[in-house]
């Protein structure tokens, strides 16, 4: 009985205390767990983008490694020859349409370039002796004008050390006037060899006198006298070409033009049976043929423009050397593993890309060729005037302003050119003696701003500089030659790729050139990859709300040639350091977008150029304030 009572009381105590005790123990354990393990005590989740990115990269890296291992395993899997050939044919079939289409584009473009080439060569055959001599006579007129300009300072008072010698100089100046008259006569009658000989005699007298007097120290300005002597000598050489009938048979001989070879045999096959390797090799061959035809077309145009023989013109033209990878050999092999098959697929992709590039380049060539032929119609008149204008531009003095507004907007009449030459018409600069401007470099550096859009309401009316360009180059030009003519002079195509550029022996330049966007912080622009004896082309556009005459200040280290809307406005030859006020042109810009092309040639060391623009009235106002 007692035992029973004891058991009951124990059970009752357990029933009464048990749940609380258990609860307490559990809470205690939970508390201990919370205190002991930090992660269980976290009440918020922090998100770190950096950690997340790192974890993502780790996962991605593991996945890449896994895939690489899997790839490696698959690459080693062997294929039977039959299976491999079937898979290769399947891979080629997927690309066949694109490859054949690109090949067809190349063939069409080859045909078009060849037609243009034949058209230009036919024009060479039609040249007459008078055509050829008229260009020489035009050069003679330009040289005579320059000679007169150079002679004029030597006839001024005080130009000779001993006043007694002035009469001799004046006699020679009269002979220079006679030379000018004879040159103009020859321009109208280029086959009059007697007058050409007369001109040579006058030039010989002038040259001899200038040389002997300069060497004897009888001129105050020795270099000016030697300049006249040198120019007279040049005229003797030029006029010498007019004393004999030109060898028209030799000049019009185009037998060395061989044209493109026959199309590759593979092209004759139906497209369905053309393998990728054959299509690629045929495309390479056709591309070479297009280059050959285009080179001959350019040579024919140069021969027409300069009235030289085709063979001589060919020697001045560079033919692009395009080194395309030899993918045909790789494509002809049969893969033995999955890895080899994948390589074939990659090669096919590469071939597709290269052929696309070939097709685009051929279209660019066609555009360029059509541009050459299109301009051929009025080329003679254009070149005659260009010769005269170019001569004038080359002989402009440092800091001199030349007004070209009379000849902008197309090639004008002789009267307009003469106005431009004199620079003394109504629109001429009035603010300084001798039509010259002297720029304060520090002031211009401090105040000039970049700008390419011009409006009458603009706050800024001072000097602006062009700092944004597309530049391509370098091409190698030994001895600062201006020939040959490179592609950008024919047509500016910012998507074009040229393969005849500068090649370093062991440097980074491999001859492949692309237009690069260049924006500078200051007015001086340095072309990329500067090399000695090289040339670059820079292209940009300027916008005018309305037709406007502006003053251009162009400077370069070393030589430069500038075209605005395809017209030469600046032609500086020889080696010279950069000088902001090297020369000025007053030019007329058209309403809308105007094209500006600069050719800058580097001798040794540095190469920079700058183009500044200013409304002429601003310069006149500042001059009047002074």
């Amino acid at each position: 009985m007692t035992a029973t009572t004891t058991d009951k009381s124990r059970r009752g105590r357990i029933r009464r205390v048990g749940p609380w005790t258990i609860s307490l123990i559990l809470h205690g354990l939970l508390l201990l767990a919370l205190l002991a393990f930090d992660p269980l005590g976290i009440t918020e989740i922090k998100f770190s983008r950096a950690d997340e990115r790192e974890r993502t990269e780790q996962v991605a890296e593991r996945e890449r490694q896994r895939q690489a291992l899997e790839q490696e395993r698959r690459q080693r899997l062997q294929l039977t020859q039959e299976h491999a050939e079937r898979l290769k044919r399947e891979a080629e079939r997927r690309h066949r349409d694109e490859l054949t289409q690109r090949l067809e584009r190349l063939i069409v473009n080859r045909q078009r370039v060849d037609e243009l080439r034949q058209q230009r060569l036919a024009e060479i055959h039609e040249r007459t002796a008078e055509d050829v001599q008229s260009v020489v006579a035009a050069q003679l007129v330009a040289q005579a004008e320059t000679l007169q300009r150079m002679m004029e300072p030597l006839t001024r008072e005080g130009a000779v050390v001993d006043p007694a010698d002035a009469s001799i100089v004046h006699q020679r100046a009269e002979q220079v006037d006679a030379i000018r008259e004879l040159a103009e006569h020859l321009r109208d009658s280029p086959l009059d060899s007697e007058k050409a000989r007369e001109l040579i005699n006058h030039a010989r007298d002038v040259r001899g006198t200038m040389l002997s007097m300069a060497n004897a120290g009888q001129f105050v300005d020795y270099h000016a006298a030697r300049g006249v002597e040198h120019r007279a000598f040049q005229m003797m050489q030029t006029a010498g070409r007019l004393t004999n009938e030109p060898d028209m048979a030799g000049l019009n001989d185009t037998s060395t033009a061989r044209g493109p070879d026959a199309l590759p045999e593979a092209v004759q096959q139906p497209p369905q049976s053309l393998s990728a390797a054959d299509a690629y090799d045929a495309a390479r061959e056709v591309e070479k043929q297009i280059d050959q035809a285009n080179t001959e077309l350019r040579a024919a145009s140069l021969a027409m423009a300069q009235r030289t023989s085709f063979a001589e013109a060919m020697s001045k033209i560079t033919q692009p050397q395009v080194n395309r990878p030899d993918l045909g050999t790789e494509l002809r092999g049969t893969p033995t593993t999955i890895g080899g098959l994948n390589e074939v697929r990659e090669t096919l992709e590469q071939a597709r890309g290269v052929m696309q590039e070939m097709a685009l380049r051929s279209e660019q060539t066609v555009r360029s060729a059509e541009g050459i032929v299109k301009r051929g119609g009025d080329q003679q008149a254009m070149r005659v005037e260009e010769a005269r204008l170019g001569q004038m531009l080359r002989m402009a003095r440092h800091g001199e302003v030349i007004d070209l507004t009379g000849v902008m907007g197309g090639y004008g009449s002789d009267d307009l050119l003469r106005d431009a030459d004199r620079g003394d018409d109504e629109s001429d600069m009035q603010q300084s003696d001798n039509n010259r401007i002297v720029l304060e470099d520090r002031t211009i550096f401090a105040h000039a701003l970049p700008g390419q859009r011009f409006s009458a309401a603009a706050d800024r009316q001072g000097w602006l500089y062009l700092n944004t360009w597309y530049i391509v180059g370098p091409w190698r030009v030994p001895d600062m030659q201006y020939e040959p003519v490179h592609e950008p002079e024919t047509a500016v195509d910012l998507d074009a790729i040229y393969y005849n550029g500068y090649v370093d022996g062991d440097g980074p330049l491999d001859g492949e050139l692309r237009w690069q966007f260049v924006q500078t912080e200051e007015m001086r622009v340095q072309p990329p990859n500067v090399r000695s004896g090289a040339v670059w082309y820079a292209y940009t556009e300027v916008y005018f709300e309305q037709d406007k005459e502006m003053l251009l200040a162009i400077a370069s280290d070393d030589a430069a040639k500038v075209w605005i809307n395809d017209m030469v406005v600046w032609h500086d030859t020889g080696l010279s350091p950069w000088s902001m006020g090297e020369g000025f042109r007053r030019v007329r810009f058209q309403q809308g977008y105007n094209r500006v092309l600069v050719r800058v040639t580097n001798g040794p060391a540095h190469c920079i150029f700058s183009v500044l623009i200013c409304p002429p009235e601003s310069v006149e106002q500042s001059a009047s304030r002074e």
Partner: protein
Amino acid sequence: MRIRWRNDVDGQAEVSLSPLIDCVFLLLIFFLVATMLREVKRDIAIDLPESEATVKLRPEPEQVVIGIDTDGRFFYEGRETTVMKLLANLGDLAASSPDRRIRLDIDRATPIEAVVEVLHACQFRGLSNIGIRTYDRYYN
């Protein structure tokens, strides 16, 4: 024995709405997908940059999208283009609607020269309504 249906008693047939709702949902999904596809078509595969100081703008269906990838290649409305074509397109745009919004989609690793080139081309042609798209967790 003739069975009398309840409908017969009412004398009116009921049209089930289920097919109609199905059609409405299908149309809704179609337009949703079509709209998204139109937006995706102009996007290119790039990793957008992040910015703490962006202004959220309501998307304009008429906006022009110019993309530049990590290699500096240009895309106009989602299609790869060349410099000459891009300049021509911008010239046409400036002539027709100079106030049209232009959105630049640029990868965080895009060479800055390419961005400057496009910005200059727009600015030179008088196109000034330009925005650069940045990463948005809800949109991207």
